[in-house]
C-alpha cells in the first residue's frame, strides 16, 4: 500500500506523518470509538485469558456442583469462591461460563468472517477483472443471494445441515460471502481504470501480480469496514441460531446457548442466567459496530474534510 500513497506523504513536513499514523490519530478523535475499542480489547483479552482468570472450568464436570445451581449473584460456591454473577441451572459459575462462551462466540464469528472474506474477495476480484459473461453470472448469483436476508439464508442452511460448530461456520460463510464479493468488485472496478494500474500493465507485469499486488491493496479499506460489521453480524447471528436451538450444541456453549439455557428460568424471576451472557454479547456486538462505524468514517475519503 505504501508505494501507492507515497507521493502524498513525501510532501515536505517537519514531522514524518505516515498514512498509518494519520489513520490512528483520526481514529482516536472520536471518544465513543476510543471507548468502544478499549471495551473490545478488554473483551478479547478476557476471552483469551479465560482458563487463567476464572475460578472454575465450567465444562469440567468434576469442578461443577449441582448443589450450586441457580444461586443469585454474589453467592458463595460450595468450593469456597464467590460467584459474582451467580450460577446457572446446573451449578456452573456464570462468570466462568461467560468467558468460556465468549471464546466460542468470538472464534466462530471471526473464523466465519475470515473465510467469507477470503472467498468473497477472490470471487469479487475475479468478477471485476474477468468482466463479460463471468462477471455477469457471478453478479447475478450475488444479487440473488442478497435478495434474501442473511439470517434467513443461515437458518435455511442449518435446517438442512444440522447442528455443529463446523456446520454453523459453513452456514455463516455462505450467508455472508456475497457482501464481501459485492464490496470488492465495486471497489476493484473503480481501481482498475486508474492510471497506476495502466502503468503496472505497461510495465508488463503479470495479471495476477497486477490484481493482487496493485489492485487488491487499494480495495482493502472498504473491505476492512465491511469485515468488522459483518463479523459483528456473524456473532449475533450465531447467538440467534444457538438460542433457537438450531445452532451450536450444548457441548459447545457459546453465549447464545447460555442465554437459551437461562430463558426457562427467566419467567420465574431468575434473571441473571440469561441477562449476564446477554450483556456480554451486547457489549461485544455494539463495540465492534462502533469501531466499524469509526473505521468507515476515517477510511472513506469522501467524508474527509
Amino acid at each position: 500500500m505504501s508505494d501507492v500513497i507515497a507521493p502524498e506523504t513525501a510532501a515536505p513536513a517537519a514531522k514524518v506523518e505516515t498514512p498509518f499514523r494519520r489513520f490512528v490519530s483520526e481514529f482516536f478523535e472520536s471518544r465513543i470509538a476510543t471507548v468502544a475499542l478499549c471495551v473490545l480489547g478488554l473483551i478479547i483479552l478476557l476471552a483469551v485469558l479465560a482458563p487463567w482468570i476464572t475460578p472454575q472450568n465450567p465444562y469440567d464436570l468434576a469442578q461443577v456442583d449441582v448443589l450450586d445451581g441457580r444461586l443469585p449473584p454474589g453467592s458463595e460456591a460450595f468450593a469456597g469462591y464467590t460467584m459474582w454473577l451467580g450460577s446457572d441451572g446446573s451449578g456452573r459459575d456464570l462468570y466462568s461460563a461467560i468467558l468460556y462462551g465468549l471464546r466460542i462466540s468470538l472464534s466462530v464469528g471471526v473464523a466465519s468472517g475470515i473465510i467469507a472474506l477470503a472467498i468473497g474477495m477472490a470471487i469479487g476480484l475475479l468478477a471485476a477483472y474477468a468482466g463479460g459473461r463471468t462477471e455477469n453470472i457471478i453478479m447475478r448469483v450475488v444479487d440473488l443471494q442478497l435478495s434474501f436476508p442473511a439470517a434467513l439464508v443461515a437458518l435455511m442452511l442449518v435446517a438442512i445441515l444440522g447442528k455443529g460448530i463446523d456446520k454453523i461456520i459453513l452456514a455463516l460463510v455462505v450467508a455472508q460471502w456475497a457482501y464481501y464479493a459485492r464490496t470488492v468488485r465495486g471497489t476493484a472496478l473503480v481501481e482498475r481504470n486508474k492510471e497506476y494500474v495502466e502503468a503496472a500493465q505497461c510495465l508488463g507485469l503479470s495479471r495476477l501480480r497486477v490484481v493482487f499486488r496493485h489492485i487488491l491493496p487499494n480495495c482493502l479499506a472498504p473491505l476492512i469496514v465491511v469485515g468488522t460489521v459483518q463479523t459483528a453480524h456473524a456473532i449475533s447471528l450465531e447467538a440467534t441460531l444457538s438460542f433457537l436451538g438450531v445452532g451450536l450444541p450444548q457441548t459447545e456453549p457459546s453465549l447464545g446457548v447460555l442465554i437459551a439455557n437461562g430463558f426457562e428460568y427467566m419467567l420465574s424471576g431468575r434473571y441473571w442466567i440469561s441477562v449476564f451472557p446477554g450483556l456480554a454479547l451486547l457489549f461485544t456486538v455494539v463495540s465492534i459496530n462502533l469501531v466499524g462505524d469509526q473505521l468507515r468514517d476515517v477510511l472513506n475519503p469522501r467524508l474527509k474534510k
Partner: protein
Amino acid sequence: MTVFIIRRLMQAILVVFLMSVIVFFGVNVIGDPVHMLVSPDADQADIEATIRRLGLDRPIWEQYLLFVSGAAQGNLGNSFIFGEPALKLILHHMPATLELAFSALFLAVAVGVPLGLYAGLYPDSPLSKGIMAGSILGFSLPTFWVGLMLIMLFAVELGWLPSTGRGDTGHILGIETSLATRDGLSHVLLPAMNLALLKISLAIRLTRAGVREAMGQDYVKYARAKGLSTRRIVFVHVLKNIMIPVVTVMGLEFGSLIGFSVVTESIFAWPGMGKLLIDAILQLDRPVVVAYLMIIVLFFVLINLIVDILYSILDPRVRLRDQGA
C-alpha cells in the same frame, strides 16, 4: 417490456427449481428420520413398515420426482409428526405470522416516521441525538435479546402484558385474528414491538435523511415565501414527498419481517410459520421443513419479481441494461 418480464419469470422459475433440488437433497441426505420416529423397542418389521409408509426405501431421485410432482399438485408431503399434509399445516399457521408482520410494519411506520421527522427537523437538539443513538442500538442489538428484555420488563417485572401465545382471537372480515379482541391486541403488542425494532430504526434513518434533504429544496422555500405555517409545510408538503421512498423501502422489508419472525415467534411462543419451522427442525420433521423452505423461497422470488417489474416500469434504464447484458 414483455420480453423483460418473460426473462425475469424464467429466471425466477430457474431459481425455484434450483432451490427445490438443493433443499430436498440437502434435507434428505443429512439426518435420518427413521430413528426419530420409530420407538427404540420396535422390531425390524416395524421399522421397515415405517420406511415403506414414508417412501424412504425408494432411490433418492425417485423420492425427489415424487416430491416435485406432489409439489406441482400442491402436496408437499405429509408431516411425520402430525400426519397432516405439510402444506396445509404451514398455510394454517400463516395468518398468525402475517398478522404479526403487518402489526410490526404498522408499528415501524407509526413510531419510526414521527421520531425521524423530529430528528430531521431539529438535528442538533439533544433529543434528536438520543433518537439517533437509539437507532444505532436498534440496528446492532440482536432481535432475540431485545425480545428477552421485553419479556423480562413488561411481562415478568411489571406484569403489564402477556408474553406467550396469541390470546383470544376474533373475526374481522371472516379472518380469524388477534387484532379483533382486547386480549389478542395485548398479546400482539410485545412480539410486534420486538419484530418492529429493526424496522423502526430503518424508518427513523430514512425519514431523517429525507427531511434534511427536503428542507433545503426550492418547493419548501417557495412555500415559506408564500407565508405558509411551518406546521403546514412539514406535515403537508415535506411529509408527502418523503413518504414515497419510506413506504417503498418499508414495503420491500416486509419479506425480511417474515424471515425474522422465526426468531420472535420462538421467543413469544407465537403459533406462526416460524415457530412451526423451528419445531420441525428440532423434531426432524422433514416434509414440514422442506415445505416451509419452498414456500419462503417462492415468497421471496415473487417479491423480487414484482419489485423488478415495478422498477423497470418506473425506470426504463433497468430494462435496457438488462437487455444489453
